[in-house]
């Protein structure tokens, strides 16, 4: 795994075993060969990527430090502003907008650290979905079974990593949109604490819950990208005024001092047996025997759904009035319904959120890390409306957020780790911590990866690409 992760590339580039330009040309060739079957990329920035890679090489030639991610290829969900490109946010409506005049803050920080942006990635329209079945630009396909969804809304971001196109990407997560595709594609995904990473220059959806974060093929890549993106940003009123708390140096710190527990109740029901087996395998590896219960998760999902629908609709009210039929048929009815919600329901949902947050805070006085399944089942088929779980037929798409939605509802930091199991399709387990305690999650994830309990599932490259 190490040979193809981003920090492996950085080490090779810095040691001059390969140039950044060669690395980027190889990645671009891989995208040309493989992406038509996956539909991850909406834009490939060939010229800019080669130019940026050459600049990394020139810096090294001149004895300058190009940064901690020197020459590492990456790509971003197409809701992040990229200077000179139109920010689609998965929509046809935005295709008529002017090009962005500057990079989103997190994109600029990654590029400033020497990472090379290769392009923008497919998503559910305006991030309103869990499957990336985008009617305008086509579905993104799961690299492990092309008849199945990649998850969403950051589906292109997850499939591009799992498909071996780039070692890390950026996504956004409002109700599970980093964690769900990370689970279904078998990679790592971090949704940091609400307010940890700047959202400036990212198209918003549900402003109370919008987070941005990295997806990656290794824990150290996830940490490296996260560390570079941290820090205050006056351009985002939600971004916290906190210093950088690097996680990469803490990956070998172990988990001895951490109190780890398994969440039961809601988080141990209504899923396929394999997802609970995945949680148990992680718990066993960590010696976690304690069980804790978070109450009222269905109401948390209800409140999160109301807040998301209201805030999402209000962001797009002008277009809902002027051109409703230009929205994706997968989102437009839900946006219109959200526009018609009475304000009192929205306020009630926000009040419930405060109640739920108080409960969760109490739990994290006793526990440092909670183990929770990420999705209740592996990837459904593209176009699949319902799924039978435990003998009960349920709507497949909203059910994908069953275990993720209550956690983003109160802004907790979460890493979804890919469990190394014999199952044909991947599933993830969420590591959940108290606000601002991302470092604990990275220590647990790194230990699990080191011991082979979790591992990214990246589609093998054909011999011609090695």
């Amino acid at each position, binding site marked *: 795994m190490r040979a193809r992760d981003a920090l492996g590339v950085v080490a090779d580039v810095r040691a001059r075993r390969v140039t950044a330009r060669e690395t980027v040309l190889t990645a671009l060739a891989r995208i040309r060969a493989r992406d038509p079957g996956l539909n991850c990329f909406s834009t490939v920035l060939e010229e800019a990527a080669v130019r940026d890679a050459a600049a990394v090489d020139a810096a090294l030639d001149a004895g300058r430090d190009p940064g901690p991610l020197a020459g590492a290829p990456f790509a971003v969900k197409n809701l992040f502003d990229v200077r000179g490109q139109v920010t689609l946010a998965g929509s046809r409506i935005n295709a008529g907008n002017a090009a962005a005049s500057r990079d989103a803050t997190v994109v600029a920080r990654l590029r400033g650290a020497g990472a090379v942006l290769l392009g923008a990635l497919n998503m559910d329209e305006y991030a309103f979905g869990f499957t990336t079945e985008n009617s305008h630009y086509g579905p993104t396909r799961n690299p492990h079974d092309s008849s199945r969804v990649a998850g969403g809304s950051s589906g292109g971001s997850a499939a591009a990593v799992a498909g071996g196109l780039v070692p890390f990407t950026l996504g956004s997560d409002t109700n599970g949109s980093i964690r769900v595709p990370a689970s279904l594609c078998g990679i790592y995904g971090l949704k940091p604490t609400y307010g940890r990473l700047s959202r400036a220059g990212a198209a918003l959806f549900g402003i109370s819950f919008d987070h941005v974060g990295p997806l990656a093929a290794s824990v150290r890549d996830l940490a490296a990208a996260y560390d570079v993106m941290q820090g205050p940003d006056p351009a985002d009123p939600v971004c916290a005024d906190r210093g950088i708390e690097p996680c990469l140096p803490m990956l070998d710190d172990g988990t001895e001092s951490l109190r780890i527990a398994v969440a039961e109740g809601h988080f141990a029901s209504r899923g396929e047996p394999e997802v609970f087996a995945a949680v148990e395998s992680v718990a066993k590896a960590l010696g976690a025997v304690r069980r804790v219960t978070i109450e009222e998760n269905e109401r948390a999902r209800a409140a999160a759904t109301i807040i998301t629908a209201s805030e999402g609709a209000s962001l797009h009210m002008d277009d809902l009035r002027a051109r409703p039929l230009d929205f994706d048929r997968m989102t437009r*009815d839900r946006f219109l319904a959200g526009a018609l919600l009475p304000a009192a329901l929205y306020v009630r949902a926000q009040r*419930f959120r405060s109640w739920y947050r108080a409960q969760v805070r109490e739990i994290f006085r006793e526990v440092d890390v909670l183990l929770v399944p990420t999705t209740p089942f592996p990837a459904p088929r593209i176009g699949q409306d319902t799924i039978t779980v435990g003998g009960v037929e349920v709507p497949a798409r909203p059910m994908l957020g069953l275990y993720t939605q209550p956690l983003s509802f109160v802004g907790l930091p979460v890493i979804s780790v890919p469990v190394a199991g014999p199952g044909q399709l991947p599933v993830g387990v969420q590591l959940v911590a108290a606000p601002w305690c991302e470092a604990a999650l990275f220590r647990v994830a790194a230990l699990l990866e080191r011991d082979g309990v979790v591992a990214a599932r990246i589609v093998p490259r054909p011999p011609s690409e090695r």
Partner: protein
Amino acid sequence: MSAPDPRDVARYVDEVAPLLDLLVPPECREGVVRNLVGLLAAGDLLRDFPLGGEETAPVFEP
């Protein structure tokens, strides 16, 4: 609470949408009603839960 009656919700959509200057296209009406039924049912779930004096005012710095 029982789920909202879709016929009542359909009437609500027909009456309220124009007041908001929203024209719900005919091909969307059924889906909008179905989704709004679901959202109102979610609201009922919250209405049934006893809340205390939870403060939710956003922090505003002038």
